């Protein structure tokens, strides 16, 4: 089990992550979701041993990373957003070297290599120089280096960024296949990816966890809200001001629209679509459309990261 207790990390005087706590059970796939700059990569780097926490604890099976950093790192596999590859090496040579550096003997590496190459679907390029591989294959080699030493905990930072749809499906299969062997943590700002791959989601905003649970649990947390997209004919600023003053609107965000029209994504408290329509008409706005907003998880994510105050840890969103 991985336990993170009151993790705080500062860069100089700037707090990147503040008082973050969570636990991950064995063989669970957990997604960490947040906008750019939310603190996802900082948390992953701390978990991978690349950064030390300013305060708080990170433990694997009760062992603190500060007490036994070497044995801690042996139990972790890490894929940064850009795979750390020595491009002049062949895939096999690279994986063997990483395995040895991570503490396996030569015989152990040879035993493990075939398994990892098969799991990551690298058979066709195993003897190829990494420099000649496509972006998708490089990501797979990156995942292979993260799991070559049979770690307990695998951390994947944006594993599908920059991949085409076919490659995304392939990488998703690889990640799902990891669940049988280890615990996995994935960071992403792609909502569909997290919802399809992960058992549980941590939503991060401004360095704090603002919600956690499965997709269904997160949606339940915001059951009282309704997300709609509204387009009206009228002045953009007046529309913005009007939305800001309505008590049944939890939050809103203006979206691009050509004058004389104005659009916004609106989060309602309860299903108050009739009240919204009524107040807009009474205020002189011509309603062009009111339609259901983006997917359930996306709506949840936007609500959690846009409305104030936050709904979980009591932090500021």
């Amino acid at each position, binding site marked *: 089990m991985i336990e993170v207790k009151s993790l705080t990390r500062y*860069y100089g005087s700037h707090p990147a992550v503040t008082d973050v706590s969570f636990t991950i059970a064995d063989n669970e796939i957990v997604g960490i979701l947040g906008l750019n700059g939310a603190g996802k990569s900082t948390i992953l780097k701390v978990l*991978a*041993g*690349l*950064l*030390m926490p300013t305060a708080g604890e990170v433990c694997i099976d009760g062992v603190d990373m500060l007490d036994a*950093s*070497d*044995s801690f*790192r*042996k139990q*972790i*596999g*890490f894929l*940064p957003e*850009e*795979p*750390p*590859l*020595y*491009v*002049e*090496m062949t895939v096999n040579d690279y994986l063997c*070297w*990483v395995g*040895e*550096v*991570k*503490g396996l003997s030569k015989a152990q590496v040879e035993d493990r290599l075939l398994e990892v190459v098969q799991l990551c679907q690298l058979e066709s390029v195993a003897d190829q120089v990494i420099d000649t591989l496509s972006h998708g294959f490089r990501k797979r080699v990156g995942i292979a*280096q993260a799991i070559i030493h049979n770690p307990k905990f695998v951390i994947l930072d944006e594993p599908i960024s920059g991949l085409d749809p076919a490659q995304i499906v392939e990488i998703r299969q690889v990640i799902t296949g990891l669940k049988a062997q280890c615990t996995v943590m994935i960071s992403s700002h792609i909502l569909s990816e997290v919802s399809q791959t992960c058992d549980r989601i941590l939503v991060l905003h401004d360095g704090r966890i603002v919600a956690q649970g499965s997709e269904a649990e997160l949606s339940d947390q915001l059951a009282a809200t309704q997300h709609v997209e509204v387009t009206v004919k009228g002045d953009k600023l007046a529309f913005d001001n009007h939305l800001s003053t309505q008590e049944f609107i939890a939050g809103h965000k203006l979206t691009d629209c050509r004058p004389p029209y104005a659009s916004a994504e609106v989060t309602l408290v309860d299903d108050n679509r009739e009240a919204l329509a009524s107040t807009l008409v009474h205020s002189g706005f011509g309603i062009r459309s009111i339609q259901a907003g983006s997917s359930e998880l996306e709506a949840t994510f936007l609500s959690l990261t846009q409305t104030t105050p936050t709904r979980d840890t009591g932090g500021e969103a």
Partner: protein
Amino acid sequence: MRGILLVARRDFSAYFNSIWGYVVMAFLLVVNGLLFNTIAMGQSARPSTQVLEQFFYISFGTTVIAAVLITMRLLAEERQQGTQALLDSCPLSDRQIILGKYLSAMGFLSVITIASVYMPALIFINGKVSIGHIIAGYTGLLMVGSATVAIGTFGSSVARNQLEAAAVSGFVLILMLVMWQLARLTDAPFTDLFSQMSLYDKHFQPFQRGRINLSDVTFYLSTTFLFLTMSIRFIEPRRWR
């Protein structure tokens, strides 16, 4: 020790798996050969010992340049290419990383140095020089190589990219090369201090003339130790920054 050797093995083979290693090796051997032909051999007949001394003088310069070119990539390249994250997430200590990097660069520099042995061999066959003089000269070159590679490793550990690394190590090396000039311009006790710190003047000339002094060996090994320790100390706090 296993970690050091694993890091050294990968970095050493990287010199031979990339065009950069061959370019550096070819460039230095060609420059060394040309300078040997034009300066050491010269136009007029000279004693073999003098030619050999000139060869080691030239080789001192090419060794210093080689060290800068070889070491500029050591850690700066890892940072530039993002592979530092791999090393940092492995159960390797900073000491193992720095020593492994140093050994790989030292190994490659030794290959280049040994590849130049055909020049003193020509003098040995066609003239009258002792094997001892050749051995002493090459010991000196390896000692200089060790110290300059350690300085280069330090430059690479403090810099953000390879050009910065070359600039930092180049600056330190030039400073240590002109120490003898500073020694002339200052009074005691700085005269002795600067004189002792000179990379070439006081410490390499005995090797060049065929003598191995323990004090000179100690100087180069101490310089190596100092700059490697500084490199380790510099990269250690990065996880806390």
